[in-house]
């Protein structure tokens, strides 16, 4: 069996042992979509492409779609539902139970100077506790440095829904090379001034001085997502949108 083509797995499939990276000394890292059945069986739980990174000695199943399930370290955009004595209750996806955001988990927050977030406010936060038996917990400050690092309330702008796959690609360190998303760079290069925040939970927040800019950016992102556009097509789309408006 040749390894050049993508390996597509379905739940319950057997994984060819030759595909599992085996660097001695380093522990094998399991990513999403895989289940380890002791002693040494690996079984996929979702349908997707089996992907390995031999350098990091890791293996996971790449897929798109479904509902966001919180994982520690993810950056997410949530909506405040209500606030109680010590927590804000925040929704990450519709119809799921709320995540907890401690009122003191903000930069410079003390008992006296805690932020006042109204119901309906948006926050950019990091998941710091995710556990199947407990509601997820969020933070808007790095516990190590005490700095916000861009996390916190998001004011103004517009929130767009995208697929989980695109959110992941937008958050990649090299989103152009690895994720093949060029829209944001292209829009920026076309002279539009805007800021964005991407939540791993399938949300993209776009803000700009100009309403039109927000709309263009939003539509470019959503169209890239819905129509599975390649880098070239994305560039074309951006040119088209900019032409349409100007």
């Amino acid at each position, binding site marked *: 069996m040749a390894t050049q083509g993508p390996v597509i797995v379905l739940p319950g499939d057997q994984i060819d042992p030759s595909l599992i990276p085996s660097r001695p000394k380093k522990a094998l890292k399991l990513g999403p979509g895989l289940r380890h059945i002791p002693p040494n069986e690996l079984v996929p739980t979702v349908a997707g492409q089996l992907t390995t990174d031999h350098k990091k000695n890791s293996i996971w199943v790449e897929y798109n779609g479904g509902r966001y399930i919180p994982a520690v370290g993810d950056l997410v955009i949530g*909506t405040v539902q209500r606030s109680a004595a010590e927590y804000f209750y925040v929704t990450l996806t519709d119809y799921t139970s709320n995540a907890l955001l401690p009122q003191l988990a903000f930069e410079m927050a003390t008992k006296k100077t805690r932020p006042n977030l109204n119901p*309906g*406010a948006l926050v950019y936060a990091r998941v710091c506790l995710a556990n199947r038996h407990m509601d997820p917990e969020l933070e808007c400050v790095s516990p190590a440095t005490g700095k916000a690092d861009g996390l916190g309330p998001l004011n103004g702008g517009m*929130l767009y829904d995208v697929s989980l796959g695109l959110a992941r690609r937008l958050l990649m360190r090299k989103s152009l090379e690895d994720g093949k998303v060029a829209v944001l760079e292209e829009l920026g290069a076309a002279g539009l001034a805007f800021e964005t925040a991407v939540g791993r939970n399938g949300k993209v*927040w776009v803000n700009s001085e100009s*309403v039109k800019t927000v709309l263009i950016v939003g539509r470019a992102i959503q169209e890239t997502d819905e129509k599975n556009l390649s880098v070239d097509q994305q560039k074309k789309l951006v040119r088209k949108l900019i032409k349409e408006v100007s």
Partner: protein
Amino acid sequence: MPREAEPSLNERAFVVQALQEGLRIDGRALDQFRELDLKFGDQYGVADLTLGKTRIFAKVSAEVTTPYTDRPFDGIFTITTELSPMASPSFEVNRPTETEIMLSRLLEKTVRRSNALDTESLCLVSGQKCWSIRVDLHVLSHDGNLIDASCLAVVAALRHFRKPDTSIEGETLTIYTPAEREPVPLSWLHSPLCVTFSFFGEEADIVVMDANLLEEQLRVTSFTISFNKHGEICQGAKLGGTTVEAMTLIKCANDALDKVKELTTWLDLKLVEDSKRRDKGGLMAELSAENER
């Protein structure tokens, strides 16, 4: 069931701000409908309508039953709209929400009360036998404007429907199976369609057609008006919400009429296309039947 999710403050503010500049989030003009598509099933009376991300499935069925005692000369005509969690997890089976009741009332008024279907023609033997025509409406995907889309789907399905042919000889009523005789269309009098206007702004002076779910959640009030292409209003409903200038409503009515004419033409075309497609199928079937012989 989980509560319906509400848009964030940022979205609320931005959508309204954009509308004030005459812009919609999805780039449409204020009076522009989303992309419409209509597919008929292989069976008669099945319509699958998509309006942007809203998708409605309507199925018409008929059976012979006894008429209501107080209306011996009329057949029975019902439209059932039960929203399942497929449309949104906040809908619960057997517990009608306000959305569902309002949708069912508007369809009732638009299609049934306006006598679009001649119920007297459904009578077979007065007081004893009549047709019961039933439309089941299923919302497969809910992204706003259920009312206009549902009305279009219901009318399309009813116009597409064929009921089994019947004949009466003396006292005996014969109902032919589809294999015996080609079914016949319903006695359809006119095609009423709904157009819903959504209003924004504190003075409700921004008027938008075919609102999507987000816009529906943020509008200050709405006005649904039903027309047939002959220019008759079949129903009009602005049920509360922020007040609107009377003149604006009159203007909406005029715009709605134009839109209904446009939609009716579109629907007629779709029905013609489908009957052509079927005719081809019919011819093919005949040929193959001949081959077998």
